[in-house]
């Protein structure tokens, strides 16, 4: 089996060949390959930019791999600020000994995921580190988008909180794929590019206040952040939050809370009550949004708390994840 060696990362002949054979050929960006930086023009709009490094373990999991995740993740971060994703860079840190065929599969997934929404991968980088200095492969993606809907987070009392589908799927898929806990489940990661879904929602309503993709830390952490950052109190209804049976079962078995498990293909939105139905309909019209649901309401401005109403009718406060040790999920 052909494997990555240190020489693939030293800027010499082998590095040159690897870049030509794997990256340039799959990303089809030879236009930029000759220069230290890629050049391109974007319409004179407001821009959005985001970066993420992906260290998910394992690299391959039901429903995706680190490459698909890395591209979708950055596209999603651009999408949730109301941007049309345009260009992206990909940077690889590869452990000596990594199988080149796996690298090709991963890069192929990246190219496919980017192509879905016509994102051009304009620049890249490859570093190889000694065996034991990385866990196979890490990927950084950094993306630029052009703002199409300037979201203004003027959240109001009574606004609805919508999630585009069931929560915790990615987290459980990773737990299962790691195999360490002996968990077996057919659940697949929800890892996907949300731009088409979000574009539909933005078409349906010009008044979406705020969007976020609840990845690391799960739905609860994403909403706690929103509550704190924008000074609002949100009340979720435990019974309305969509959770797949298998995810619930896995959580029961392991003692995890699905609200804190990662998602990689879900968006949570705050919308005016009046627009709730329009947005829901738009989301549900897409396969990724079929299970979209209103899960809560903005109860007050300026308190900054996330509350959960239990089936008993009492509420309790939700916090950020605190020091729980979950496996690497992104």
């Amino acid at each position, binding site marked *: 089996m052909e494997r990555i060696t240190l020489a693939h990362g030293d800027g010499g002949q082998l590095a040159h060949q690897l870049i030509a054979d794997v990256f340039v050929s799959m990303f089809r960006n030879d236009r930029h390959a000759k220069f230290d930086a890629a050049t391109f023009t974007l319409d004179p709009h407001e821009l959005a930019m985001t970066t993420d490094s992906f260290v998910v373990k394992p690299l391959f999991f039901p429903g995706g791999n680190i490459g698909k995740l890395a591209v979708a993740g950055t596209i999603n971060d651009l999408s949730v600020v109301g941007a049309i994703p345009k260009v992206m860079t990909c940077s690889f840190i590869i452990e000596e000994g990594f199988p080149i065929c796996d690298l090709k599969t991963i890069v192929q997934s990246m190219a496919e995921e980017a192509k879905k929404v016509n994102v051009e991968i304009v620049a890249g980088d490859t570093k190889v580190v000694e065996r034991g200095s990385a866990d196979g492969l890490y990927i950084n993606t950094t993306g630029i988008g052009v703002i199409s809907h300037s979201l203004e987070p003027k959240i109001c009392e009574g606004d609805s909180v919508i999630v585009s589908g069931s929560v915790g799927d990615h987290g459980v898929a990773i737990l299962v794929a790691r195999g360490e806990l*002996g968990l*077996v489940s057919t659940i697949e990661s929800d890892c996907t590019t949300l731009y088409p879904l979000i574009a539909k929602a933005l078409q349906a309503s010009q008044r979406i206040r705020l969007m976020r993709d609840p990845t690391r830390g799960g739905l609860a952490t994403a909403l706690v952040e929103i509550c704190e950052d924008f000074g609002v109190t949100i009340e979720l209804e435990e019974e309305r939050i969509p959770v797949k*049976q298998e995810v619930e079962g896995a959580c029961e*078995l392991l003692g995890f809370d699905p609200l804190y498990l990662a998602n990689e293909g879900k968006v949570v939105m705050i919308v005016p009550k009046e627009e709730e139905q329009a947005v829901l309909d738009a989301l549900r019209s897409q396969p990724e949004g079929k299970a979209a649901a209103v899960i809560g309401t903005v109860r007050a401005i300026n308190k900054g708390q996330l509350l959960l109403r239990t089936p008993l009718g009492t509420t309790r406060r939700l916090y950020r994840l605190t020091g729980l040790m979950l496996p690497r999920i992104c």
Partner: protein
Amino acid sequence: MCVGVPAKVLHIDGFSARVDVMGSQMDVGIIFVPEVKIGDYVIVHAGQAMSIIDEQYAKESLEEWRKLVDARRDG
């Protein structure tokens, strides 16, 4: 986490059994419930099936609670 989850026994292999909770599964030890049968529900704790759930009693509890509801509704 010592709450214990009711899990359905799918198959048995020597001293261990594959159990299912709503579609997610796990292999657990069954040395404490050697009499367990496929289809039984067991309480799982830290990788061991600790007890077989008595369905009759489970139904009875449920009936008791239901009666309470009915009583309230009627009364």
